[in-house]
């Protein structure tokens, strides 16, 4: 537990390219600092629990408020349909049909209805799980299959993770679009886990620009270092970030992760890198 009044450290682990080792490094961060919270914000494909001992989870729903129409009050004036910018409320027939898959839950139709004929109900789009394993509080967001928008689930998972009041690791989704931004927003610092390949470097640069625009302190962890004789340098914005560690490709680590064994149990360089990342983030967030 963090003493009152002391700043806690919140690290987001990001990558751009998938499969560079975000989840492996997030697990290493959590396991190298007992008493932290770990948030799995990769809600489309949450995998952090596989490396953190798969604790028993208490779950709750995440819902998106969608409109329902009271046909008795509706005068079919069509205001709701004209107001909705996502095509989720159409006006024909007895009462406006609602296409909840298209609804963003903005509530504009409810505000606009002159008859107060609309109210909202929560439509489940995902779940939050919470469990404790090895002294780590794991908070996992999980998008329901078929739901297009992961952002509300990510925001809820991060919010509940931070409510634990502990130092926190956020395992972010890949890419560099709105889900990644949602996972990153509350973090004090970001660790960009990448690899020295053309794919890794190109994608790291896209993420680096987001981090720069958001004003987040950021550092690199280069995974699978040594694929070529010498790692090519990172240029652009990513090239200005400090390199905290270079982790060499290890077949044992890759096999371990495949079976759910965290890398810190197999290769001490991961624990060293994780500790360096905590030290750096504690300084950087100040």
């Amino acid at each position, binding site marked *: 537990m963090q003493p009152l009044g002391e700043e806690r450290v919140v690290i987001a682990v990001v990558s751009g390219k998938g499969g560079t080792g975000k989840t492996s490094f997030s697990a290493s961060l959590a396991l190298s600092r007992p008493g932290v919270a770990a948030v799995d914000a990769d809600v489309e*494909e949450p995998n952090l629990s*596989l490396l953190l001992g798969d604790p028993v989870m208490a779950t709750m729903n995440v819902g998106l408020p969608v409109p329902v129409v009271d046909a008795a009050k509706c005068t079919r004036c069509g205001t709701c349909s004209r107001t909705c910018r996502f095509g989720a409320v159409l006006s024909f027939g007895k009462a406006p049909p609602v296409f909840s898959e298209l609804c963003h839950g903005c509530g504009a139709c409810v505000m606009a209805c002159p008859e107060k004929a609309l109210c909202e109900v929560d439509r489940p789009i995902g779940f939050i799980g919470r469990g404790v394993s090895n002294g780590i509080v794991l908070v996992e967001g999980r998008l329901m299959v078929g739901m297009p928008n992961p952002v509300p689930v990510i925001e809820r998972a991060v919010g509940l993770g931070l409510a634990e009041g502990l130092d926190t690791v956020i395992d972010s989704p890949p890419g560099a679009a709105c889900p990644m931004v949602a996972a990153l927003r509350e973090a004090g610092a970001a660790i960009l886990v990448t690899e020295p390949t053309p794919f890794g470097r190109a994608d790291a640069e896209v993420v680096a620009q987001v981090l720069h625009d958001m004003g987040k302190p950021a550092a690199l962890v280069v995974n699978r270092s040594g694929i070529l004789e010498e790692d090519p340098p990172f240029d652009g914005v990513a090239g200005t970030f400090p390199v905290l560690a270079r982790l060499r490709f290890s077949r044992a680590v890759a096999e371990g992760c495949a079976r759910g064994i965290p890398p810190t149990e197999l290769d001490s360089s991961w624990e060293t890198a994780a500790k360096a990342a905590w030290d750096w983030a504690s300084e950087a967030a100040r």
Partner: protein
Amino acid sequence: MRPKEIVVVSGKGGTGKTTLASVLARELAGQCVLCDADVDVPDLWILTSPRVKVEEDFVGGDKATLNRPPCDDCGRCVPACRFGALSAGNGKVVLDRSRCEGCGACTLVCPRGAFSLAPAVQGRIYGSETEYGSFWHARLHPGGENSGRLVQVLRERARKTAEEQGKPWILADGPPGIACPAISALTGCSVALAVTEPSKSGLHDLKRLGELAARFRVPMAVVLNRCDLSEEGAQEIREACREKGWPLLAEIPFLRGVVEDLARARIPADIDSRTAGRILRGAESLLSR
């Protein structure tokens, strides 16, 4: 004839989507149109050296603008925004456009008409030529939104080009995950080719992807990459494929040569034409079922 569209997807990132797409592009050289549907971090260009012929802005959804005057910082808009794009501090209303979803709730509550909504440029679209075929790709602005819509636009362009050129195949390199860009990439395609790896996370994510494909009635086949990383994991993937009825079209071992070719931005020579041909025939046979 309507072109057959293969979309390479994975659920989990980093399993080898772009690698497989490039190998299939080499196999289909001259008979296909390419499409990079991974729009926030596109990588297929790295292996295909595109020469850009046309480019244009991608205009996504609307975004609000707060005009002052007439805004008098009354703050009524702040609780109306469900996306946290509006906040009030020191008596000033602040709009964070990166959080705006363009719903217009602010325009409904503002007594002074201070908000306007207009479509915002969210990325750039490119039409290129490669030695394998025409290539549609894009770049979403960093942190951008509406990636699903951009994927849809690219697929429409690719279909049009394939029809004009009389190419029988469209080959799309898809995004990871299962949310809007993945849904946009899968909807209405001929076959989803899922690249996975023999790990617990690979299996977990493959199952979620399979559920998504079934929901959108897209036939799915599987390629198991780095199959020798874990025998136990590979066995679990094989069992899942059998149980779910996903044809397992190829198992590709971890090859040092593939890693080295990719590090030098070359389409891997070690995943050979025989393997690529087998995958394509397997995908094709799924279409006629």
